[in-house]
């Protein structure tokens, strides 16, 4: 156009380049975060394994790094995590799936619009609040039914974690069911099926991969849960499947050490990173498998 234009175009070129570079760095920060997590965990874990043999770590049945007689077997912590996550999944799966089925195949739009946001609230409650609920309401309540239930146990937080992940299982499964083409349902209806038969025999199998992916994500979330367990599960690592006694999970152990005054650079300090590494690998594996299943599902349904 004119000289003004030319001047602006030149300035614009510099500004565009500057914007591009700046935004590129913002974009790469997430990669740096992942690298940071891996680097930090690896660094301390390798230092840990210089003092503790990997074999002992994976097979010893006692976890007592903070006591005089030190054992570094991770199995009790893994058992504690698995137990509470297992209980959580037992609670969340039936409730989540039935809710998802109902909301997807039966509920009217009005009911769906009312119920879904309220379910989402369950996912938004801070975990310390759930911890309070587990310790001071659910545990005493369960003790009236199970007198031998100890004050700290795996059952109560397990149930509460289950309630917390219901929205995750429910809404992801519902998405999977919603994606099933209407034509499949119509085919079944045309053969004289009832709504329930269509739901159970057609929709659920077709949405199966999506449902499985959602369950895996729920397990991953349960495994990574910290505060509910730090509050209500106890601090006694023990290799057991008994839900009525105190246990300790991987996450709660990290909290326990962080609350104390363990000096940095010691073997006790390094244990939280070794445990953290196990936790990270476990949840990463579950998330990746879940994504892979969802990808295959997307290809199947088209």
């Amino acid at each position, binding site marked *: 156009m004119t000289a003004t*234009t030319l*001047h602006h175009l030149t300035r614009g*070129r510099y500004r565009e380049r500057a914007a591009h570079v700046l935004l590129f760095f913002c974009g790469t920060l997430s990669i740096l975060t992942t690298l940071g997590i891996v680097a930090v965990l690896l660094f301390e874990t390798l230092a840990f394994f210089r003092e503790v043999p990997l074999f002992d770590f994976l097979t010893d049945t006692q976890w007592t790094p903070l006591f005089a007689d030190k054992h570094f077997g991770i199995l009790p912590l893994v058992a504690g995590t698995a137990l509470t996550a297992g209980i959580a999944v037992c609670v969340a799966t039936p409730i989540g799936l039935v809710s998802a089925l109902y909301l997807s195949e039966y509920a009217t739009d009005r009911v769906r619009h009312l119920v879904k946001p309220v379910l989402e609230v369950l996912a938004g409650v801070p975990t310390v609040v759930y911890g309070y609920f587990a310790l001071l309401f659910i545990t005493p309540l369960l003790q009236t039914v199970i007198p031998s239930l100890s004050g700290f146990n795996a059952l109560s937080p397990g149930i509460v974690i289950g309630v917390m992940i219901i929205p995750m299982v429910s809404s992801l499964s519902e998405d999977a069911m919603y994606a099933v083409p209407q034509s499949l349902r119509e085919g079944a209806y045309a053969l004289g099926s009832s709504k329930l038969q269509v739901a159970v025999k057609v929709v659920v199998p077709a949405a199966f991969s999506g449902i499985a992916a959602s369950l895996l994500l729920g397990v991953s979330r349960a495994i990574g849960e910290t505060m509910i367990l730090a509050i209500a599960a106890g601090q006694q690592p023990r290799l057991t499947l008994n839900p009525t006694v105190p246990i300790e999970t991987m996450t709660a152990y990290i909290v326990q050490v962080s609350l104390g005054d363990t000096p940095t650079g010691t073997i006790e300090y390094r244990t939280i990173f070794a445990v953290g590494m196990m936790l990270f690998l476990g949840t990463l594996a579950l998330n990746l498998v879940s994504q892979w299943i969802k990808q295959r599902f997307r290809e199947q349904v088209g």
Partner: protein
Amino acid sequence: MDETTALEVHDLNAWYGHTQALRNMSLSMMERRITAVIGPSGCGKSTFIRCLNRINDLMPGFRVAGRVLFKGQDLYAPGVDPIEIRLRIGMVFQKPNPFPKPIYDNVAYGPRLCGIKERARLDALVEESLKKAALWDEVKDKLHHSALALSGGQQQRLCIARALAVEPEVLLLDEPCSALDPIATGRIEELLLDLKKNYTMVIVTHNMQQAARVSDTTAFFMLGQLVEFGPTSQIFTNPRDKVTEDYITGRFG
């Protein structure tokens, strides 16, 4: 009739990824004339016109070979800034796409990007562009109302005004009337004939009667290739190619 060439295309080939969209196209568009591009769906009309202002550059995987000369300069030569090109070759799209902003700000957007800030100058530019697009009388009292409140035909004229505000030399129109009703279409066709006095225009249309009404030269594309190109009157009354004749007479497309 004094005729100079505004745009010349030489051996233009274009690909979307692995699919070839344009094959060995060569044609010239004259200054202050309207060139129409017609052809059945998928023949490459839109792809072609979008090569002329390099807006296809924004498509990932799009590749071009060949030359597009504007006033003698190859637009695809290395070092040529696409942004400068778009200030001289403007475009109006198929579906009117005004910004969800006031009418004034729509028209003033381009000039503001060029660094024009003085209120008086912007006001004059906005008024002039809206007058050229035959929209001024209808919107002069509501310049600060949202552009989305206008009718489809008015929105398209607004898009024309907006394109004219940066004072281009060429105006590319990609099926500008296909989303509009016949009355709005008629008004825009009148407008184009009026704008011809000062602007070179290339119009893509799937409406042959429109091409016949409005253009001076017509190019007929098929499957990414130029089949025939010549004065509109000749193409529509005495086409040289049989395929052209079949298309014109409605045997296909």
